[in-house]
């Protein structure tokens, strides 16, 4: 901005300034910009995972708008006479025919479709990894629990937006998925039949579902998601970004670069990089070639009918679940589908509610703006890895036939492997991860006290060989010792303030037990204390 002096007061202000003045007079953007322009963001590649999600979401909206111009969400049956020869004369819904037209007759249609779909796959994968980053670094702690829930909701809504989206073409693959969903709905006791009838406007498949999914896919869910994205970003601004511990970084400051100009340039550039990478992938690699699948007909089905990856673990749950059912008073309870449906909800709820569970166990009500290194929270890290393990094992279950054909295995063996390791895998993962974390903590302590192994071997005058350890820099020492270590919560005093004996409640006991599991002996390695450090570096007993 230019400063005007008395001598050139009569000179006209530059055009940019006049435009800015005009806008400020009506929108009051100066004060808003002033407060936020210099907002500081810390620099770390993992903080850009959320940006990948944001940008792929924008790409999905942009390409989605283009697709709505040509897509007909109608289940009216027509005979196809477009340019894809192997479908000539086949009866299909307008939805499927218009998707074929988008793929073969609309200029740029196939590329836009593939960008839309690949961006969705990347969006969901990005959200998953972003969520894991937040989880493993403890960024969900106060004051960010609500934002964690917003993010979680975005992931779940993203799953269902994706599902309603890939169902729209009404091809044989996605129609099978819709049938699967209808089966899951029907398995709900009492309400299932009613919900199915309402949703499909009668018996499956009816004539309404595509039009309804269309409204949900292009209006309802993305509308809610857009609102949540804005709220998510406002909260990121309001809370300020978390940062990894390091010299000069405290719970009360943020060390990094200002939003303007540095982050605006970086984020803007990154948007184009994300768009570019997704566009290149979409130009080179097919996704969801609906023309090979044919229109949906309830009497046809194909092998290899999987949902997109983010619904894969639900598919896995149903695939590996034994087909149990109970008949009660003339009603059938299809446990083979109902139990997977419940487990699906429980697994999602477990990760959503984890921040509240942890803060209850630790009793920590303070604000946290410094991130944990995953190794310094071994129990949390181990729980997270256990959850991811269960999730990934179910993905294998969902793709059991593809794993069978491509690795020349028996599909039955894979199913049994998944059944067993859905329970056993997380336990093994928990134990192994915790051991690794504790090992890394010991290593950190060792590095603080004895320095870095330099690899230089020295021979002492009396013939002994020693390796020279280089002391760490002050900054490194800080980063390795900045974390806080909790003491496990104790059960309150056994007598109350009046000296009357008090029986600790069951929840109190449970909490103390869990707290011990988090911070008790053997669940974290006491970090190097100043005394220890001084004693060793003063030269006594140091080789």
């Amino acid at each position, binding site marked *: 901005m230019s400063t005007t002096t008395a001598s050139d007061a009569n000179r006209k202000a530059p055009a940019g300034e006049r435009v800015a003045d005009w806008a400020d007079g009506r929108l009051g953007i100066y004060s808003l910009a002033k407060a936020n322009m210099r907002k500081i963001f810390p620099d770390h*590649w*993992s903080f850009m*995972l959320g*940006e*990948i999600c944001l940008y792929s979401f924008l790409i999905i909206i942009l390409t989605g708008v283009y697709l709505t111009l040509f897509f007909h969400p109608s289940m009216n049956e027509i005979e196809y006479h477009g340019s894809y*020869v*192997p*479908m*000539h*004369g*086949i009866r299909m819904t307008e939805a499927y025919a218009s998707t074929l037209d988008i793929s*073969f007759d609309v200029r740029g249609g*196939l590329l836009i479709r*593939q960008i839309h779909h*690949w961006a969705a*796959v*990347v969006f969901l*994968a990005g959200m998953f*990894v972003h969520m894991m980053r937040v989880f493993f670094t403890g960024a969900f702690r106060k004051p960010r629990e609500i934002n964690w829930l917003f993010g979680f909701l975005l992931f779940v809504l993203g799953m269902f937006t994706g599902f309603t989206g890939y169902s729209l073409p009404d091809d044989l693959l996605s129609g099978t998925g819709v049938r699967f969903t209808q089966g899951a709905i029907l398995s709900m006791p009492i309400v299932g039949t009613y919900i199915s009838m309402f949703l499909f406007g009668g018996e499956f498949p009816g004539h309404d579902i595509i039009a309804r999914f269309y409204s949900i896919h292009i209006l309802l869910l993305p509308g809610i998601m857009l609102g949540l994205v804005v709220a998510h970003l406002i909260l990121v601004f309001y809370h300020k970004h978390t940062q990894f511990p390091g010299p000069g970084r405290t719970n009360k400051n943020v060390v990094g*670069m200002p939003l303007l100009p*540095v982050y605006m340039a*970086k984020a803007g*550039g*990154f948007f184009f*990089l*994300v768009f570019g*990478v*997704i566009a290149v*992938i*979409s130009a*080179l*690699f*097919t*996704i*969801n*070639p609906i023309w*090979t*699948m*044919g229109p949906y*007909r309830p009497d*046809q089905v*194909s*092998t*290899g*009918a*999987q*949902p*997109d*990856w983010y619904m*894969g673990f639900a598919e896995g749950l149903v695939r590996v679940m034994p087909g149990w059912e109970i008949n009660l008073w003339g009603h059938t309870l299809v446990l083979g589908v109902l139990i997977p449906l419940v487990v699906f909800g429980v697994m999602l709820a477990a990760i959503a509610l984890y921040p509240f569970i942890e803060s209850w166990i630790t009793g920590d009500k303070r604000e946290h703006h410094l991130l944990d290194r995953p190794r310094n929270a071994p129990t949390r890290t181990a729980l997270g890895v256990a959850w991811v393990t269960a999730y990934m094992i179910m993905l294998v279950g*969902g793709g059991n*036939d*593809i794993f*069978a*054909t491509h690795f020349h*295995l*028996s*599909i*039955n*063996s894979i199913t049994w492997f998944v059944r067993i390791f859905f329970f056993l895998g997380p336990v093994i993962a928990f134990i192994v991860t915790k051991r690794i974390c504790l090992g890394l903590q010991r290593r950190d302590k060792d590095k603080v006290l004895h320095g870095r192994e330099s690899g230089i071997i020295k021979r002492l005058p009396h013939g002994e060989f020693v390796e020279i350890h280089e002391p760490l820099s002050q900054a490194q020492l800080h980063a390795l010792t900045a974390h806080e270590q909790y003491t496990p919560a104790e059960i309150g005093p056994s007598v109350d303030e009046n000296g009357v004996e008090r029986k600790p409640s069951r929840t109190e006991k449970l909490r103390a037990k869990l707290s011990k599991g988090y911070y008790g002996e053997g669940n974290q390695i006491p970090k190097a204390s100043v005394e220890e450090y001084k004693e060793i570096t003063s030269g006594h007993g140091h080789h």
Partner: protein
Amino acid sequence: MKKLSARRRHPLAAVVVLLLALAATGGLYAAFAPAGKAQADETAQSLAIEEGKKLYTVGCASCHGTGGQGTTDGPSLVGVGSAAVDFQVGTGRMPAQQPGAQVPEKKVIYSQAEIDQLAAYIASLGAGPITPTEKQYSPDGADIARGGDLFRTNCAQCHNFTGAGGALTHGKYAPPLNDVSPKHIYEAMQTGPQNMPSFPDTTMPEQEKKDIIAYIRTVNDDRTATPGGFALGGVGPVSEGLFGWIFGLGSLIAVAVWVAAHTAKAKKS
């Protein structure tokens, strides 16, 4: 008995006995005689059967028995027909290398002439589906779209939308169809090899088989156009998801690391 015994000297008794004897002999002959084809006395045909039997004795008899009657290691080949032989030996499945969930396709070790001789010998053991002629299986002029519809109704459950293959129980599988010749596809439908059900002409007429072959040739062939780019195996969302994670998100994270590493510096170092 007495009645019969009393008339044994009747002048017509000999004629009746003769008629009965002839009927019994003819009946027995009709019941036990080999099928008519085996009786064909063309020199070339019997030569092929002769040669085929020799090949059979060397390459097949250890599992299928010396007369094709089958053993505990291999099924009976009586009545499987020449089409089955042409498919199994012509795609390298037979002779099998080892027992397993399913006998895989492998290198063909017999020449077509030898396969024909083997087929002739097996066909001579009992009537069965006959090796089709090119006129029968050639997909020229067939209705591709109708073939696609038939394929999705009858084949896609095991072979996937375009014949990319799929898994069956206990390590068995429906093989991919991209490099299978029209003749072998036709024979497979006709004879139902291994775990495949058979689709004889009574349930699936010749024209429908041709349509299906034409569809497979159009959508799953080395020359098939993939308008969307590389098809990633054509097995659907599993490979797409894996690709999206590793190459989509993976390359974006690599870009993020690169962007984060190149930041404005407070002071030039």
